[in-house]
């Protein structure tokens, strides 16, 4: 690579500083990543043992059960479920905010359980059924949590709202009569920078009153 490390430019006589060491190792890490891609390519071109399926690094065809329908799509093996939903499937209601499982904005259901879709590869979903925010309303009929979110203004910018709805609706599925503490626990992984937590809790408790599991 044409990139030169700082240590090559270090003036004569200067010791090996912690700073230059860290910078050097950061570059080394970047190099290793590129090497890793190359290694996969070699694996693929080599004759695979019979019965061993190697997918990637190019696009592979997969089937996903999403909101009750079977969808066929082309994904790179490294593509997360969140990316697959938002990209090839055009289901942009699922939001990516941190892309590393820290904020829960991308929450969807997998067989009825909440997951951060940014932390799961699309090719690993398999036959499990995916439910996204687009699958919550039955036609014009909103899910009770969705309706309660509107009534209680459990949103401001609305960006974290789809994920919040997924977690609160999942809570009612499993705990139809939750306490405020239950709701706090259910959304404890969510970050809402606008600060809608009080209204989210109020809305979910209100939805529970009319909710039939």
């Amino acid at each position, binding site marked *: *690579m*044409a*990139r*030169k490390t700082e240590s090559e*430019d270090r003036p004569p006589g200067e010791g090996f500083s912690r*700073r*230059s060491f*860290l*910078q050097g190792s*950061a570059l080394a890490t*970047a190099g290793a990543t590129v090497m890793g891609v190359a290694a996969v390519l070699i694996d693929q071109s080599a004759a695979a043992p019979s019965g061993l399926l190697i997918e990637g690094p190019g696009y592979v065809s997969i089937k996903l059960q999403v909101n009750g329908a079977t969808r066929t799509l082309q994904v*790179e093996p*490294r593509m997360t479920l969140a990316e697959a939903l*938002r990209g090839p499937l055009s289901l*942009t*209601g*699922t*939001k*990516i*905010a*941190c*892309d590393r499982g*820290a*904020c829960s*904005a991308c929450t969807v259901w997998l067989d009825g359980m909440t997951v951060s879709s940014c932390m799961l590869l699309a090719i690993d979903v398999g036959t499990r059924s995916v439910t*996204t*925010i*687009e699958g*919550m*309303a039955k036609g014009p009929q*909103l899910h009770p949590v*969705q309706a309660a*979110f*509107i*009534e209680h*203004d459990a*949103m*401001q*910018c*609305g*960006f*974290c*709202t*789809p994920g919040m*709805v997924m977690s609160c609706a999942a809570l009612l599925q499993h705990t139809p009569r939750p306490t405020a503490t239950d*709701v*706090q626990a259910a*959304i*404890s992984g*969510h*970050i*809402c*920078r*606008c*600060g*809608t*937590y*009080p*209204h989210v*809790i109020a809305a979910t408790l209100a939805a529970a009153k009319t909710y039939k599991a």
Partner: protein
Amino acid sequence: MAIDVTTRTESFPFGIGRTGLGEIERQVPLNEPPPLPPNADLSVIGKSIPRHNGREKVTGAMSYTIDVNLPGMLFGKILRSSVPHARLRGIDTAAAARYPGVVAIMLIARPDDPAAAVVRYIGAPIAAVAATSAAAADEALALIGLDYQPLPFVADMDTARGQTAPLVYGGAAQVGGNAAEESEIPLLAGLPVKGNVRGPATDGRGNVTQGFAQADVVVEAEFRTQVQTHCCMESHAVVADWRSDGLTVHMSTQSTTGVRHELAQTFGLPLHRVRVIVDGVGGGFGSKSSLGNHGRIAVSLSRQAQAPVRIVLDRQEEQMDSGNRPGTWQHLRVGSRHDGTLTAISLESYGTAGITVGAGVGNVAQGLYDCPNFTGAQHDVFINAGPGCAMRGPGNTPGAWGLEQLIDELAERLSIDPLALRDRIDLSPTRREERRIGAARIGWPSRRAPGTDRGPLKRGMGMAQSLWGANVQTNAACEVRLMRDGWIEVRSSVQDIGTGITTVLAQVVAEVFGLRPEAIAVRIGDTEFPAGPPSNGSRTTASITPPARTAAWRVLQTLLLAAAPALNVSAAQLIARDGRIAVRDNPSRGMKFEEAAALLRTDQISEIASRSDDYAGFRQRKGDAAVALEDLGGVQFAEVTVDTETGIIRIERVVAVHDCGRPMNPLQIESQVQGGVLMGISYALFENRILDQNTGRMVNPNLEQYKVVGPRETPTIEVIALENYQGQSATDAYGIAEPANIGTAPAIGNAVYNAIGVRLRNLPMTPAAVLAALGKIPSRS
């Protein structure tokens, strides 16, 4: 007084709703509507109407900039500096240019240009790539070779102030980044630069030396605040589409109008060739007011590639290079008589907005209390870190952290209750009423002496006040259209960043036509519509609702003229109410609204109105930005429990009493104030951008180690909004976003003192800081 023939005299409701309304006469432009009655007499304004776009938001249908997907769109990525200070001697893009999928490469840093060869913080943009996929763009970035010549750097404000500190700028060079634009921040143009220190910006009145000499009691202290990042859930995002016939930019922005102007200026285009569009904005809080590096880069790449280019910052870029609330140090001194009368206040501050300016502590010390003698000296300190920018209550949030604690210290020294002292020194009748209401709600008389609890869990109660100007943008216009089938549409380039202006515009227009707000279509966030105000400085509602009502009222006049002959009355005898156009004195005589609309001469009628001056004038005005005569108030009370064994502070309850002129939608106001309080709790207890002093790198550029308040730390937050009528515009509404944030941290600070009897003067108040203050562990500073 000379008679102005372009205005008429009207009598407006005046004063604070709960204390009994009076009336005040104002001169109103002839083409503006009659005074709006108090909320109690209205059917839609002032009511808790559900969010207009609520259904879109809960179903995932709301479209944000990160969801915009244009045909042929490319993906842009930015190569950023991995070192805090260096001169670039070479950039090799040959391998990247050959990488499959790469369409365009641009250099931001230029080794051949001395002015553009230096990078000054980790995360500074160096080059950018547009490719057919985001992954290809990322991979191409890794192929760009950089030859850095490292330069000495400084990543800490105290070190940067020293005589021998490495210089961020070689002398008094140009300053990069998005300098703060908020009106409350002292503008620092033309100030001296010495080393890394710019300033001081000075302000003063009276004679402080004499004032302190007259004081019976003087209190003084130093306060520190950390760097806070905005953490918008939707990171900064842009889709630029450069075409020969014009430039269209989709951008997650707080100011379509402002970004349009910046684009026109930056790229040498006439304004009419630039269009900026935004639908949903996933948070801004001050960080999305300008075009930004990512905006300039996306447009340049699009022009080069002849294709639309999308850039979405990842969370790390967002944390390092999308702005932050500057860190500050301030020394405050307050002198008073035995009875609490203030004689002098002095302020000295140093703050750092990284490589840029705007790190002042606002005008709290200068303006919150009645004091004849004041002097202030505020400095900016450059360090090798990402640029700061405005963040919710810029300046005044760190400013209130200091002054509001010191006023409590003064009250204790004087043996006066903190509320009683403020009753003496605060001239604002609004805040006086807010203190009274808040004290009753929280149960202030039950507050005990500091450190009363005997066990390890110590409870405390405190309060603090906010100061924020009631900002108005005069470059704010709104169109209202009525079609012959009864369809009504409101149009403005104003954007809804989550504050709910979409809903409020529907309410305002519905009230005029006697319709339900759901019947009003609101089309905003597009510069093809009349220019809307920026959503910063708590100015949106104050700026855009008066022209919306005025435009709707003018349209209604035309409609009434069209309907009058059919009812055999004059237009002046008609009113719009309950979905009908009816005769005022005999409402059973009339017709449905749609029937009246069908009588229009043309398919569509339309009026555009702009924001006139406040009827009694502005206190201050600079360009399009004005400040109303009366400031906004805001008083908050907090109850806390401090665990003196773990150092953990728990906020139990907050009572927030606020005013925003005429409250337009109490439910949305509650949402926004709760959000301001939570951001204040987060500032007080958790958030902190941490720079590694050995590398200049932010060590927590994410959302897990950068701690933001979550549901479990959320207390009961009770919001009370006053009706405070001033008779100043067609709606008499002002903003609330920033006051809701300013008083929270000092209210908690005062409550923590009340709990443990030891004062914490530095933010954030982490468990370690509490234990250190209690002498249980060594102090780290």
